[in-house]
């Protein structure tokens, strides 16, 4: 039964598996095979599970594809459509070839990640050894909530900090004459990176043309020759591959302008309350906007100004990491569709109206608060107010004092203190005493026991309140895990300690904690039984 939402990339009919005819499906995440006439899959493998694929030699009569899984199992697929068997197989093979590396990388990454974490954190490693290697809990359970937490901050810390873009990166490409009537431009990978980030249109062109149509060198040569690079040149030649970039830039700029500004204080359009009617005013003869009576020089001047504005905007956007409208257009393949639509629509009318709607709704919802805040900002004279910042700070302190001395917090913190090892409840084992009485290796072992038990208990307590079937199962399992831990780890340790020393109190607290958990479990179970009967 195929989930409807899954995207099917390829369907191959008449594929035999275990001498049964059927259909092979390649989906976004998995490969599946279902026998003819039934609408469910008897074979289904996630791509991530597949180690590799093997194909039968070309000359062989049976045209087959074998999938080898990480577990060592394998599945043979026999393409039996006589006329197109080879083609079918190759199609499936090629697609798999593309898909597998992606998933492999992901799988590997996860493994690497786990490995790294274990290596970096000895406590975790010990825990892993205690719990997983001794099969108290399964590896998945162990990693279940670790990886997800760590993934986030890890990705933050691991990604190297984004470097901003110098506004003058184009200036850094100083052309040098090479002595024989030519120019040399020096490009570094940083500059290329800057160009790509600032001008996604160029990146797109690069992706389209290099290396299919031209070499990298050729590409950049053309780039430096284009009017696109020389901002004062007006676009004339159509054969230039960058003329499209310029057009795209212009479109992006236009759409940004059309969107308008969010801050009403800088919106020059709505500044004037009442413009003079047409024909009034001392110099209201609108400057003739037709390009015909503009000289080439003027045109190129205004082009420079436009491009400077555009350049700065893009640098700013690229630096802040925030994708602005036009960037989204070109950088995102899905959004490209929108561009096409835009082009196809008769002079862009359809798209524009829709975006105005969005815009006006936007402004209706969001503008008043922004406006209010900005205006309040402007009319505030901070120095005319009596300084009362200090007062509030003092007040805060007082308050927090009283809270701290308040009973609620006190009892809570007392309880914590008492329950933690070395606390009031554990007085018998004052730290000093342990240090002196117990040899280091036992201390270390105890520490490990504590962390492992803590981890297990954490798993256990996190199941409460038990409100799903899954949690129910887990809590039962965790309880048995606890018991097993107590049997396999705690008991031997206790015995060892007993053998060496007289004090058995060393693990008393641990036992207490376990007992607490058992009590809880018991209570929960009886309640459940009551409800059932």
């Amino acid at each position: 039964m195929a989930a409807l939402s899954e995207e099917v990339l390829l369907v191959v009919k008449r594929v035999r598996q275990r001498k049964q005819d059927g259909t092979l499906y390649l989906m976004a995440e998995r490969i599946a095979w279902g026998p003819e006439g039934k609408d469910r899959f008897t074979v289904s493998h996630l791509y991530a599970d597949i180690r590799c694929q093997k194909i039968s030699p070309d000359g062989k009569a049976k045209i087959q594809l074998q999938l080898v899984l990480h577990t060592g199992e394998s599945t043979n697929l026999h393409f039996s459509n006589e006329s197109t068997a080879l083609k079918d197989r190759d199609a499936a093979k090629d697609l798999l070839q593309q898909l597998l590396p992606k998933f492999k990388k992901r799988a590997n990454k996860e493994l690497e990640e786990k490995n790294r974490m274990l290596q970096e954190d000895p406590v975790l490693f010990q825990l892993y050894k205690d719990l997983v290697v001794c099969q108290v809990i399964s590896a998945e359970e162990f990693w279940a909530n670790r990886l997800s937490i760590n993934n986030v901050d890890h990705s933050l810390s691991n990604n190297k900090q984004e470097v901003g873009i110098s506004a003058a990166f184009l200036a850094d490409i100083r052309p040098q004459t090479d002595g024989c009537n030519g120019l040399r431009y020096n490009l570094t990978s940083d500059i290329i990176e800057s160009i790509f980030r600032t001008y996604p249109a160029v990146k797109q062109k690069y992706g389209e043309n290099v290396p299919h149509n031209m070499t990298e060198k050729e590409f950049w040569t053309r780039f430096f020759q284009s009017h696109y690079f020389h901002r004062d040149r007006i676009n004339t030649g159509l054969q230039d591959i960058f003329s499209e970039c310029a057009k795209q830039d212009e479109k992006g700029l236009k759409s940004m302008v059309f969107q308008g500004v969010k801050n009403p204080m800088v919106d020059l359009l709505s500044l004037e309350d009442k413009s003079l009617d047409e024909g009034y005013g001392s110099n209201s003869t609108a400057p003739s906007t037709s390009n015909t009576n503009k000289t080439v020089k003027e045109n190129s001047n205004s082009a420079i100004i436009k491009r400077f504005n555009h350049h700065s905007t893009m640098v700013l956007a690229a630096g802040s990491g925030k994708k602005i409208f036009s960037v989204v257009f070109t950088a995102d393949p899905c959004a490209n569709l929108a561009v096409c639509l835009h082009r196809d629509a008769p002079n862009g009318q359809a798209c524009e109206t829709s975006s105005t709607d969005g815009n006006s709704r936007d402004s209706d919802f969001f503008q008043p608060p922004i406006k209010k805040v900005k205006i309040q900002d402007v009319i505030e004279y901070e120095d005319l107010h009596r300084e009362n910042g200090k007062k509030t700070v003092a007040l805060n302190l007082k308050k927090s004092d009283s809270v701290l001395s308040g009973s609620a917090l006190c009892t809570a913190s007392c309880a914590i203190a008492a329950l933690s090892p070395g606390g009031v409840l554990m007085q018998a084992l004052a730290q000093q005493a342990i240090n002196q009485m117990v040899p280091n290796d036992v201390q270390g072992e105890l520490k490990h026991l504590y962390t492992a038990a803590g981890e297990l208990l954490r798993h256990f307590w996190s199941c409460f309140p038990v409100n799903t079937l899954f949690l129910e199962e887990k809590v039962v399992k965790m309880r048995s895990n606890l018991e097993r831990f107590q049997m396999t780890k705690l008991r031997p340790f206790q015995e060892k300690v007993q053998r060496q020393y007289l004090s058995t109190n060393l693990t008393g607290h641990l036992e207490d904690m376990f007992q607490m958990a058992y009590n809880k479990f018991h209570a929960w179970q009886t309640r459940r039984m009551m409800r059932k009967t």
Partner: protein
Amino acid sequence: MKLNIEGLLVYFPYDYIYPEQYSYMLELKRTLDAKGHGVLEMPSGTGKTISLLSLIVAYQREYPLEVTKLIYCSRTVPEIEKVVEELRKLMEFYSKETGEKNNILALALSSRKNLCVHPEVSSLRFGKEVDGKCHSLTASYIRAQRHSNPSLPSCRFYEEFDAMGKQVPLPAGVYNLDDLKDFGRRKGWCPYYLARYSILHANIIVYSYHYLLDPKIADLVSKELSKKSVVVFDEAHNIDNVCIDSMSVNITRRTLDRSQANVETLQNTILKIKETDAAKLKEEYRRLVEGLKEANVARETDIYMSNPVLPDEILQEAVPGSIRTAEHFVGFMKRFLEYLKARLRIHHVVQESAPQFLKDIFEKVCIDRKPLRFCAERLRSLLRTLEIADIADFSAITLISNFATLVSTYSKGFTIIIEPFEDRTPTIANPVLHFSCMDPSIAIKPVFERFQSVIITSGTLSPLDIYPRILDFRPVTVASFTMTLARTCLCPLVVGRGNDQVAMTSKFETREDFAVIRNYGNLLLEMSAIVPDGIVAFFTSYTYMENIVASWYEQGILENVQRNKLIFIETPDAAETSMALEKYQEACENGRGAILLSVARGKVSEGIDFVHHFGRAVIMFGVPYVYTQSRILKARLEYLRDQFQIRENDFLTFDAMRHAAQCVGRAIRGKTDYGLMIFADKRYARADKRGKLPRWIQEHLTDGSLNLTIDETVQLSKHFLRQMAHSIHDISNCNVQCFCQLNLSQEDQLGLSLLTLEQLQSEDMLQKIAQIAHQA
């Protein structure tokens, strides 16, 4: 705090007060007491608005019969909203202090575009479209037609308002534009008409200049406002241009073509009406015979403010017979249009006065002066009678009729210039008839005559004596206030030379000079390396900026500047510039720093503030003289010389300096702000230029900061910035401590910039404050 301003109890919604605010209120009170007009200059960021509001509201409460209304005019929509918010703060303070609910009604009024709540109409983008659409839904005869044909579209907000909204006045409170919209939505009333209706009984109105100065709008909106009002023009440094713009008319071939089409529509409509409803036209004729008696009575009994487009003589007479019937009038207009067309068919520039024009028109097509004068009124009556829905379509013919009335009414103060082509493009025929007003006092005269006190105020009004002269009024108080500073937070520098000793100037002869451009570039480059966050640079004109930017690009200067900061440039397109501005602020905000290249007299220089890190330095490249070759300007200069004895050069310098001051003033928006003001032109060092800067800038312009080289400028700037970079909190804390000391009657220099109530009551301090105001 509560203040005692010469016996008047003023609630001031802050704990401290700047001395200049106190002084400002003092002068303001004297102006109101004398029931006269005033010109007051106080730097931006010293709390001008709140001082004005506090004092006038207090005055209104104390003498409710003397001052019934405050009309606060500002320039831009954000400014208007700012004023209302400050007012709200004041009102909250009042109710907190007195414990009683306020019964003051204050509201902002703006165009339909900013107030409409009708879902379809308000979604239109341009003000004109909104107006036109609104009119097509709410015009009186359209609503009349709806009685017979209910399927016609209507605006339910207007209908609701018309049915219910006028019975109960708007409850007391402070209404900003958004509040009005909310209120309108809640009640289902049209906020625009509600606001327009409510300004008649509101205590405080905040709206833009045009509602008072543009006769076309003032006649609709403001003519019934009470005589006992105080009018405030804030940011009034450009008020003369607003006046002139509202009275000037330009006629192109396109206007004439469209008028022609209008006339034809009128003719057809008249024919149609004649067949169906001849009585209507007869009724109109009767009304016209009776003349505009009603308006005349109203004006004589002083209910209405006068309208410069509707001269007194017209009111006393009936519409002349020759244009009384609709067909005759249309024929008359046709003849007038033909004449104008003929005048536009010329090949050389013509300049003439209004009487010359009238003489010519009489000789050529026998059109008399008298019927011309009635044109505007006659057309309005006709449009009303013909029940034309979309007035916007008839803007062309309305423009022509207004021109006819103006040209025949005013023999002085206007000039007619017909240019067959633009100066830059002599090959392309584009004839324009400029009917330009040269006398700003014509438009503002009704305001001065009608209202008992008119206050003209701004951060930059220097030299103060010129405004009363060009606006032709007699103020009772003229004063300029400086900014008292605990630390010198502004640093004006005049850069006159490059490091190569070549003079830096935007003088016409040398402005294209390679060395000048390079030196300007070097200045920008050097500053971009030492100034944190934002730098704003202003050029004298857009074309000049374009040229300079192009040559800076060629010389690679801009690329070097880019190493330090991002560059954003103003373009003629407002939407593009808005975006550039937003990005500029973003770049300042995120620490990258940016440079905004902009133009004096442009939209940015007039309406956008660069507070704190958005503008740590302003560079004024050159002296922003107006384009002096324009014939209109020449005519105006001549007129100023003949009428007001203002020398051409004086006016030009005054105009340039007020724009320069506007530009550099953009960066300092308060006492906690700081910024460099760099005047990059050696001419600023001259006494005649320097002397025309506002006093609060001049004070800090020492001889040591004149005619510097770039290197010296960099040194001084570095020093200044380093000084300023000490945490502002250190200084303000230090300030506060000083107050504490001062409270113990210790005098300290620092105590000058902020005062407590106790200090205000001390004799010494009052004497000191008196020195702050600089009586012109």
